[in-house]
């Protein structure tokens, strides 16, 4: 059954997740060829509709689309901080007239990609909507986790930081748990969900979280540009309490713990400088895998088809 849109991972059946992850393997293998491009989406157009700034996700999607031979157009979104529903609708009508095949959309408002998806025959991929979801981030994290642990069942992953406002935490936690991994959160009490999903432990103390025995530590980015700053006294304080300091890095190394981060890293906040060279850091691999996973997503979605009724 072909799917039109990728809006959030909760919509996907386990088989669909497995298929996207499995197919990302041959896509990643292409990167070692002299010609990294394949003609699968030749003549198709991908429109990048980013209402929020993003360097990584934007360029990752762009590279992925180009390696599939699609044409990529960047739609210049007005820089107004609040884009009203009305103007988004007008934008979508314009896009419809442009007969684009795929729309990659990022917006500060939850649910906006879903709204666009209902109004167009193009495949819509959610590249982050508010605090709601960031499905391709979850998928690329899952792919990276599986490279280290081919069967993630029972593996312990500690997600650290502002879990409450993080769409990354939401999507990544969702897919990690569906692959059977055990997930726990660590962060200031004010930034952890009050009622976490069942089976997800919550820690506010770093040492207690480490005693739980995580095998992967997933650090969330402190969102300087968003709300985070008001929740803790200072960035130095955050680093001291929840960051991977030099001393803690030695402990991670000692215990063989893998390190993940969605990027871009705030040095001296989530991670000390030395952590950039940490042997078990998966951060650069997440970037490379992001391209392969997004190629797999673009290849799997079918513009013009219907989404399963569960959406």
């Amino acid at each position, binding site marked *: 059954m072909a799917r039109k849109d990728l809006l959030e991972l909760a919509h996907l059946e386990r088989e669909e997740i497995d298929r996207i992850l499995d197919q990302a393997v041959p896509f990643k293998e292409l990167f070692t060829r002299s010609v990294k491009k394949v*003609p699968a989406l030749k003549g198709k157009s991908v429109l990048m509709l980013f209402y929020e700034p993003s360097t990584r996700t934007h360029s990752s999607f762009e590279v992925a689309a180009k390696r599939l031979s699609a044409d990529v157009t960047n739609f210049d979104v007005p820089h107004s901080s609040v884009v009203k529903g009305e103007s988004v609708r007008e934008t979508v009508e314009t896009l419809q007239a442009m007969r684009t095949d795929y729309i990659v959309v990022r917006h500060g408002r939850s649910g906006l990609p879903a709204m666009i998806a209902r109004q167009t025959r193009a495949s819509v991929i959610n590249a982050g909507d508010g605090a709601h979801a960031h499905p391709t981030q979850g998928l690329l994290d899952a792919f990276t986790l599986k490279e280290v642990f081919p069967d993630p069942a029972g593996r312990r992953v500690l997600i650290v930081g502002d879990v409450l406002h993080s769409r990354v935490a939401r999507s990544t936690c969702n897919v990690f748990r569906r692959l059977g991994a055990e997930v726990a959160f660590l962060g200031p009490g004010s930034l952890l969900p009050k009622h976490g999903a069942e089976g997800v432990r919550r820690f506010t103390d770093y040492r207690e979280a480490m005693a739980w025995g995580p095998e992967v530590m997933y650090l969330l980015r402190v969102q300087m540009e968003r709300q985070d700053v008001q929740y803790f006294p200072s960035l130095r304080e955050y680093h001291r309490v929840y960051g991977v300091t030099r001393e803690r890095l030695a402990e991670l190394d000692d215990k063989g713990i893998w390190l993940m981060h969605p990027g871009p890293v705030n040095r001296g906040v989530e991670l000390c400088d030395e952590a950039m060279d940490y042997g078990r850091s998966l951060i650069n691999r997440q970037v490379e895998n992001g391209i392969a996973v997004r190629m797999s997503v673009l290849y799997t979605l079918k513009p013009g088809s219907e989404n399963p009724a569960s959406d």
Partner: protein
Amino acid sequence: MNRTLDAEAIEAGIQELARQIRATLGDEPIALVGIRSRGDEVAERLCRVLSEDDPDLMLGVLDISLYRDDYEHLHENPQLQGSEIDFEIEATRIVLVDDVLFTGRTIRAALDALCDYGRPGRIELAVLIDRGHREMPIQADFVGIRLETSRHDHVYVSLEGTDGEDKIEIKPA
């Protein structure tokens, strides 16, 4: 009316392919590249026979899913499995191997896919079955079995390693 070819006929086809290729073996490095799915099994079986003549014979697998010309007509894109070309393709003599040669479109896609790995010395084509009805100017260099079919017949190939038995069925549309 349905027609079938049994395991013996398939084995004879593979031996015939091997005989034809053997006659052309020289000093140059040669690689058999099977097209997924089933072309890879034909190539593997050919390789087993021919490696007695050329112990350095190389074997590869090609997935052409990303090079097809019919996505528009597919309800769902084909499951991608990936290629395995673990040898230097530059200046190598490549024999592409497939189970059935029909319209020639798969071979067109395979040529494109192969050339994205480098510039082979030359490429030849070996097919277990040539059933005719080309839609492209493509011919095989080595043919195991020639089958008379009409354009709309279906030719179903089962192979031991992929499907559990060796069998070819020709069914009218």
